């Protein structure tokens, strides 16, 4: 009976002591991990944004804003990554910079807003009669993007010494002028990590 009580009570104490902490994402001094974490995406996005704003390629001569679509960013790492972790930060800052306006009409699946086309289907169907006709989107109103953002994230694993490995993550982004196909800007950010072979990077 005594043994049973000990076996039952101790796990309860241990469960109660599980230490869960909320990450201080503004001033995180936590240890690095071999796989990609939010700090790596923050760093990559920050360098991309800085490079873009500094380059001046988004400054139109007439002062108006470029219409930009987000195309595909390929995840060629061994990890399951939602590449929106990178692109959404860049889209947010580019929009706030006042130099571009993002489009939700075309682009990668996650950057599109289905409602844009759903409302056009509604307009052309019998349901459209239920709507105030003046508020429905008309044909020829969608603005075509002028620039497109695309890219790739890939990973290389290398043996460093007997006990350690080196993992290199490459973030590559480029901006292409859709009309001419010319590439206006591109940037690569490398994030390298070294750690024990026991730690996995996927």
């Amino acid at each position, binding site marked *: 009976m005594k043994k049973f009580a000990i076996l039952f009570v101790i796990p309860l104490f241990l469960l109660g002591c599980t230490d869960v902490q909320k990450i201080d994402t503004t001033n995180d*001094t936590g240890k690095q991990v071999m796989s990609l974490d939010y700090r790596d995406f923050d760093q990559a996005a*920050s360098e991309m*944004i800085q490079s873009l704003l500094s380059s001046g390629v988004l400054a139109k001569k007439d002062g108006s804003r470029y219409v930009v679509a987000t195309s595909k960013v390929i995840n060629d790492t061994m990890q399951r990554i939602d590449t929106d972790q990178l692109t959404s930060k860049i889209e947010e*800052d580019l929009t706030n910079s006042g130099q571009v306006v993002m489009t939700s009409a075309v682009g990668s699946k996650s950057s599109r807003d289905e409602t844009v086309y759903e409302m056009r289907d509604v307009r052309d169907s019998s349901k459209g009669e239920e709507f105030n006709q003046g508020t429905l989107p008309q044909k020829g109103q969608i603005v075509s993007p002028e620039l497109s953002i695309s890219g790739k994230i890939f990973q290389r694993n290398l043996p460093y010494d007997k006990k350690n490995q080196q993992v290199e993550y490459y973030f590559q982004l480029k901006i292409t002028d859709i009309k001419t196909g010319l590439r206006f800007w591109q940037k690569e950010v490398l994030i390298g990590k070294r750690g024990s072979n026991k730690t996995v990077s996927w």
Partner: protein
Amino acid sequence: MKKIFLMLLFVLSAVILVGCNEPVDKRVNLVTGVNSSTLADNVLTRPVYGAFTLLAGYGIELKDVKVFRNEAGFMEIQVTGYNSAVYKKRFDYKVDWLDSNGIAVNSKANVWTTVSAKSRTVFYFKTVAPTKDVVDYRMNTRETPK
């Protein structure tokens, strides 16, 4: 006796020289640990540290801050520093951008960024404001977490 006097004079002058650093730009805050070792904060070790830094170097020194607007109209700052220590130093910096009302402008690019400075060398880094509304800034530093 003369030797002791000379040693004391050496330590005293080291302390005075270390304590006479006027900041180049008060908006750039080089915290303890970045600009010096924590030994410099200790009352007991400070004189010894002062003497040591005369030989070995103090740490990160701020040499110049250039503030300008790029072609697109965004404020950019270029910081010039010098690592006077005998070893490589890594530190992080983060910039708070302020508009004309003194309100901080939020940006995803506003993250701690690491700078690595080789010993006894000049280094540069540049950063750009997220909007054209920015007119001022504050830069904070910290030791890079291990």
